[in-house]
C-alpha cells in the first residue's frame, strides 16, 4: 500500500523541505541584522530584474544543470558521485587543451571537439573510482572525494607551468576569437528577441537543455537506463534478471563524469574562453543539491538548477547592496541539501502519518 499519494511524494515533500530551508535562511539573515523579506526581494530582482542579470542567472543555471545531471545519472545506479567538482575541473582541462592546440576552423566544430574532450576527460576522472567500486568494493564516495582533491594540484601544476599564459596569473592563454561560442543575445537575436549581450549566458545553455532531454531518454527510454534503474532499485533482482553490476556501475559513472566534464562547455569555452584556477567554483558540489532537490529527474533538475542560478546571481546582489557575503548562498545550499537529503525522513514521516490518518478517517 502507498503511504501517501504520488503528488505528495514528488511535490509536497520537496516543497516543504524547501520551505524549511528558506525559513531557516531567513532566520540567519535576520540574525545578521537584515530584513529577510527585503533580502528576498533584492535577490529576485537581482537575478531576474534586467536581462543582463538574468543572463548571469542562466549562466549559473547552465553549470548546475550539467553537474546536477551528473549526480542524478550516477544516483540512478545508487552511486553517490561526489566527485563532480573534480570531474568538471578536469573536463575544463580537456576543453582547454582541445581549444588551445587544435586550430578549429569554426566555433561549431570547436564546440563538438572541445565538448567531446571535456566529456572524455571528465569521464576518465570518474573511471578509476568507478572501477575500484565495481571490482574492489572501494567506497565510491571516498574515492571521488580523493579525486576531487587530486584534480586541484594537477590543474594547478599545469596552469603554473606547461600551459600557462604569459604574465602573472596562473591561467591558460585565451582561446582564438573565432571559436568563441555565440552569446545568448546573439542566439535570441536571430529569433528577433532582444537580450543583453553583457551577460555570460551562451550557447552552452542549449547544450545543457539537450543534455536534459538526452538524460531523460537515456534513463527512461533505453535498455541501459532501464537496467541502471533496476540495478539501483534492487541488486538482487538485477542479478536474477541477468544484469551485469560491473557494467552498470562503470557506464553510469562514466556518463556521470562526462556530464560533469561537459560543464566546461559553459564556464571554460563559453564564458572565460580560457582555463583559470578554481574554474568550477563549487558548481560540482551544488550539483548534489540540485539533483537532490530535483529528485534526480531532468525536469526537476532543470527547475532546481534555475532556482540555484537565481540564488547565485541574487546572492551577488545581496553582497553588492547589503554587504551580506556571497557565502550566504552556500548556507542556503547547505540547508537545502540538509532538508531535502539528510533530514528527508524528518519531513516525510509526519506527512505520511497525516495521510494515513486521513485515509483511516475516510475508511470509517
Amino acid at each position: 500500500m502507498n503511504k501517501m499519494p504520488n503528488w505528495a511524494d514528488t511535490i509536497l515533500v520537496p516543497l516543504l523541505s524547501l520551505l524549511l530551508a528558506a525559513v531557516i535562511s531567513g532566520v540567519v539573515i535576520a540574525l545578521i541584522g537584515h530584513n529577510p523579506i527585503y533580502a528576498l526581494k533584492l535577490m529576485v530582482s537581482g537575478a531576474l530584474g534586467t536581462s543582463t542579470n538574468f543572463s548571469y542567472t542562466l549562466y549559473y543555471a547552465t553549470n548546475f544543470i550539467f553537474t546536477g545531471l551528473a549526480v542524478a545519472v550516477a544516483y540512478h545506479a545508487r552511486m553517490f558521485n561526489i566527485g563532480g567538482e573534480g570531474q568538471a575541473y578536469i573536463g575544463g582541462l580537456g576543453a582547454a587543451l582541445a581549444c588551445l592546440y587544435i586550430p578549429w576552423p569554426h566555433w561549431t566544430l570547436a564546440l563538438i571537439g572541445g565538448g567531446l574532450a571535456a566529456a572524455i576527460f571528465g569521464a576518465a576522472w570518474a573511471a578509476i573510482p568507478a572501477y575500484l567500486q565495481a571490482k574492489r568494493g572501494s567506497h565510491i564516495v571516498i574515492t571521488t572525494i580523493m579525486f576531487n582533491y587530486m584534480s586541484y594540484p594537477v590543474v594547478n601544476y599545469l596552469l603554473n607551468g606547461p600551459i600557462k599564459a604569459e604574465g602573472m596569473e596562473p591561467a591558460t592563454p585565451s582561446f582564438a576569437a573565432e571559436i568563441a561560442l555565440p552569446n545568448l543575445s546573439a542566439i535570441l537575436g536571430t529569433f528577433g528577441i532582444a537580450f543583453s549581450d553583457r551577460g555570460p549566458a551562451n550557447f552552452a545553455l542549449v547544450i545543457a537543455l539537450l543534455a536534459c532531454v538526452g538524460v531523460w531518454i537515456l534513463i527512461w527510454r533505453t535498455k541501459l537506463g532501464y537496467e541502471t534503474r533496476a540495478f539501483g532499485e534492487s541488486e538482487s533482482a538485477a542479478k536474477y534478471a541477468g544484469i551485469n553490476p560491473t557494467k552498470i556501475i562503470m557506464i553510469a559513472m562514466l556518463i556521470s563524469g562526462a556530464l560533469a566534464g561537459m560543464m566546461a562547455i559553459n564556464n571554460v569555452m563559453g564564458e572565460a574562453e580560457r582555463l583559470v584556477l578554481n574554474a568550477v567554483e563549487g558548481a560540482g558540489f551544488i550539483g548534489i543539491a540540485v539533483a537532490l532537490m530535483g529528485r534526480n529527474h531532468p525536469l526537476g533538475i532543470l527547475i532546481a538548477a534555475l532556482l540555484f542560478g537565481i540564488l547565485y546571481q541574487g546572492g551577488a546582489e545581496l553582497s553588492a547592496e547589503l554587504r551580506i557575503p556571497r557565502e550566504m548562498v552556500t548556507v542556503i545550499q547547505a540547508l537545502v541539501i540538509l532538508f531535502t537529503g539528510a533530514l528527508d525522513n524528518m519531513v516525510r514521516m509526519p506527512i505520511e502519518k497525516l495521510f494515513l490518518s486521513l485515509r483511516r478517517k475516510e475508511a470509517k
Partner: protein
Amino acid sequence: MDLLAFFDIAVLDGTVRLATPLLLACLAGLFSERAGIFDIGLEGKMLISAFLAAAVSFTSGSVWIGMFAGIFASVLLSLLHGLASITFRGNQLISGVAINFFASGITVVAAQSWFGQGGRTPSLSGDARFESIQFPGALTRIRDINKADLPMKVYSELLSGHTIIVYMCILIVPLVWWILYRTRFGLRLRAVGENPGAVDTAGISVVRMRYMAVIICGVLCGMAGAYLSTGLQAGFVREMTAGRGYIALAALIFAKWKPWSALGATLLFGYLQALAIRPDILERAIGIRVQTQVLDALPYILTVIVLAGFVGKAIPPKAGGEPYVKER
C-alpha cells in the same frame, strides 16, 4: 643529493605543527566511524570551530573561552549529524556534505556581520591565542638557533616552542588507544560499529552509544579547529581548514581506523604538507626539482591505493554508514 635534508629541523618542526590538527580531526573521525557513523563533515566542524574560537577569543580576550565556544559549535553540528543519521536514519554522507557547506558559508557570513573585515576575524594576540611554550634554556631567536649545534636545535625548535594543544596531543593518542581497547566504553563503541545487533541484544542502547561517539567526534574536531585559528595561526580566515578535514579522513582510512596508525598517518601527511611549503629543502634532498603539487596530491593518491586494497585492505567498521534498524 643530500638525503639528510629530509630531516631538516624546520621541516620536522612544521610537521609537528601541521600534523596536530590532522591528528585531532583524524581521531575525531575514528570515534565516529568506529561507532558506525560515517563522517565526511570533519572539515565543516573544524571550520566552524576555527571561526567561533577565534571570534570568541577576540571578543572575550581569553583563548580558553574561545576554544570552548569552538568546541560547542562543533558539537552542535555533530548533534545535527546525529539527528539526521541516527534518529532519522538519513544518508550519513549527504548529511556530512550539508554540514561542510553550512560551515563553509556560515563562518564567512557571521564573520562579516560580526567584524566587517571581509569574512575574517581580527588578528589575535596575547591571551586571545595559544602562545608557544618555551622550554627552559631553549633558544628563541632564529639566528641563535641556526648557529646552535644539533641537540640544541632539536631541543629549541622541534621540542620547545609549541602551543599547549600540541603537547596535549602527545598524550591524546595513548589516551584514545586506552579508551578504545581497555575500557567498557571502548568495547561497546567498537562493537556498535561492527555489529549493532550484538550490542542491542546485549541490552545496550545503540542510539545512545552512537550519540556519545558523535559528540566526542565533535569535541575533538572542535579542538582541531580552535588550534588552527588560535594556535597555528592568529585569527580566522575564510576556508582556513583548506581540506584538512578530508586529509584527516584520508589519514583515518590510511591508518585503518587504528589510533597509533592514525598518529603515523597524520605525521606522514603533516610532513608532506610541511615539505610542500619548503620546496627548496626537497630539491636539496633529492637533487631534482619536484613540483609541490605532487606533495599536495600524495595523501590522496596514497589513500586511494590503500582503499583499492593494493597494500593491505582497509576494511572499515562493518556497520559503518548503515542506520540501525532492529530486524525481526
